[in-house]
């Protein structure tokens, strides 16, 4: 099925829901922050569930369910399955929903370590946490079928409005395949690695931020996940040449998007 055919099922006036899983809320804020666009959007669609903005109807049948956050608890698996069953299309926004996000760092623990974490943070009522916690914080697509994804930590208002607009026009949101370096070149930003010997993941990280960190004179740390043609070995070699230890390199890869296949080392 082509992407165009895929979106033929969309209603003339689509119903939209926004759901939060484990996250900081920052991606939903991309919708609320631009309240003018949100008001305009609500003239084109019915926003039936968006707890932070007000509307509540968690398991309503919708055309498009927008999901922020990762799955870390048993309860959330069931909630996600119910939401998926009621939605024609699923749009995941942000690093947590796409790769598990920063809390995906728990996935590197063994059961003893996780137990230690749980006891350390919840000394009194640990069992309640243990009973509900999953051993992992994982992406939405690990549990249900996902139709569209927008990367970023956080996603921007422009990205999300662009994606929703595309979907309303029956067009699949476009994917950015370029690395951050492309934006530096377009904007004429001096390379921080070449000029300042500042470690930068720009060569292997997907663009979307328009080289926000290099513009501030610092290296990219990977908010948008790996880029399509990333050469991770070359990146590692460059960081070694710059004097970074193996642990420092590992920490750079295991940060915002540690469960991204290329950063994880798969």
């Amino acid at each position, binding site marked *: 099925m082509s992407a165009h055919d895929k979106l033929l099922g969309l209603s003339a006036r689509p119903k939209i829901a926004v759901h939060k*899983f484990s996250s900081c809320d920052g991606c939903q804020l991309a919708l609320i922050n631009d*309240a003018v666009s949100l008001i305009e959007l609500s003239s084109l669609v019915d926003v039936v569930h968006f*707890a*932070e903005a007000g509307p509540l109807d968690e398991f309503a049948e919708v055309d498009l369910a927008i999901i922020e956050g990762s799955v870390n608890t048993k309860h959330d698996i069931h909630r996600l399955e119910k939401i998926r069953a009621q939605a024609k299309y699923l749009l995941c926004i942000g690093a947590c929903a796409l790769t598990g996000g920063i809390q995906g760092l728990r996935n590197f623990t063994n059961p003893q370590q996780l137990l230690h974490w749980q006891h350390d*943070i*919840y000394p009194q009522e640990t069992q*309640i946490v243990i009973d509900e916690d999953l051993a992992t914080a994982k992406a939405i697509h690990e549990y249900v079928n996902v139709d569209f994804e927008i990367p970023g930590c956080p996603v921007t208002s422009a990205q999300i409005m662009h994606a929703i607009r595309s979907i309303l026009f029956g067009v699949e949101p476009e994917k950015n395949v370029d690395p951050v370096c492309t934006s530096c070149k377009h904007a004429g930003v001096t390379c921080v690695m070449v000029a300042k010997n500042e470690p930068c993941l720009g060569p292997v990280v997907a663009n979307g931020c328009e080289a926000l960190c290099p513009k501030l004179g610092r290296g990219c740390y990977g908010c948008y996940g790996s880029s399509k043609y990333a050469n991770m070995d070359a990146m590692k070699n460059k960081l070694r040449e710059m004097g970074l230890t193996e642990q420092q390199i590992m920490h750079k890869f295991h940060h915002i998007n540690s469960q991204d296949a290329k950063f994880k080392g798969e």
Partner: protein
Amino acid sequence: MSVTKTTKIEVPILARVEGEGALDIEIENNEIKKCELRIYEPPRYFEKFLEGREPNEIIDAVARICGICPLAYQTAAAQAMEQVFGIEISPWAKDMRLLMMLGQWIHSQYLHVHLLAAPDFLGYRSGIEMAKDYPNEVLRGVRLQHLGNDIMKLLGGRSVHPNGVKLGGFWSSPKESTVKAFIPRLEAALKDAKEVIEFVAKLPFPDTTIPFKQVSLRHPTEYPVIASGVITSDGEEFDIADWEHHFKEFHAPQSTALHSTTLDDKPILLGPLPRLNLNFDRLPKHIQDMANATGITFPSNNMFHSVVARAIEGYWAIERALEICQAYTYTDTPSAPEQYAAGSAWAAVEAPRGIQIDKFDFDAQGKATHIRISAPTSQNLPCMEADLRIALKNFGLDRPNHELQLHAEMVVRNYDPCISCSAHFLTLNVVRN
């Protein structure tokens, strides 16, 4: 034989608050039997996965605790690290840290006033719905929100998870022309901000009195944003490093959220109303006059006046940001040199919704060995539950369920709870009725 009349009000999802929370209230014979605020945000373990990490990675990471107040976490973490390592940040960097925090205050306070709180007072389900009848007010709120966001972008590149703060100061210094361009916007915003104060002062406030101990940061010379002093409504003043000698954090069995109370188990209240009550003398005289002109006497113990406190703080924040921008000069050394030393330190900032407190331990290589991060909302949780009991009783327990529910939600929203924050490491009662 007496008939027991039991009313149960369950709010499975609290709307117009940040994050995922629920509320259960049980009324029996016109008495509140149960009043529980449940938070079911899953734990994320920031304090654990950041052990062994380098300072600047931690500054980038802690922003992710909360999309609404990322800068509070970044600023407090940087301040704690600089104390441990003995790094003195420049007056320029101090000004810029304050300017960015003011940007976050401006964004968050006006978001709350217009989109989250005002619909309650005016009888709408959401800000979107309210915009149909109050387009100018909502647009004014959006303008002010954007101003706050743009101030954060000035130094951080973006407003959610900004990237400007580093150990010792900032990664870069903005051009003078870019900063000066904010002056006319801030001047125009003062007019908007004055109107917001007048607008919120006219809202219909339910009558209620909170008996809680109020706690705020205290700055030696001005209204507190980044400060190390603590002041309480019982007249205590102490350094943030002595926090644990006055208050305790514990894991409450009924909600399993980490709560803060006094050592003798009394709730403590943090946020805009206690901040204004305890620091009214730190406001410039003309802003005190504006506050008095609302007809509300500060200190006020009516928690519904929080929305007015937010509007007054917003005005102060805009004026303070204007002063910083007017005095701004470019520097080619936005950061002090980095150095590491083993040790431990406390630091705190006033996030829009209350005090955010950190304690960091580092080894001699600058790697974190122990981290404690306390979110403002988790500290306010016992107050919210106690306040609900008082406010609902004042409201009248014999009222219909839907009215009680709306009122209860309004009480909770008053605190502008940031539930992702409070649950980044704690909580959860996942039993949903």
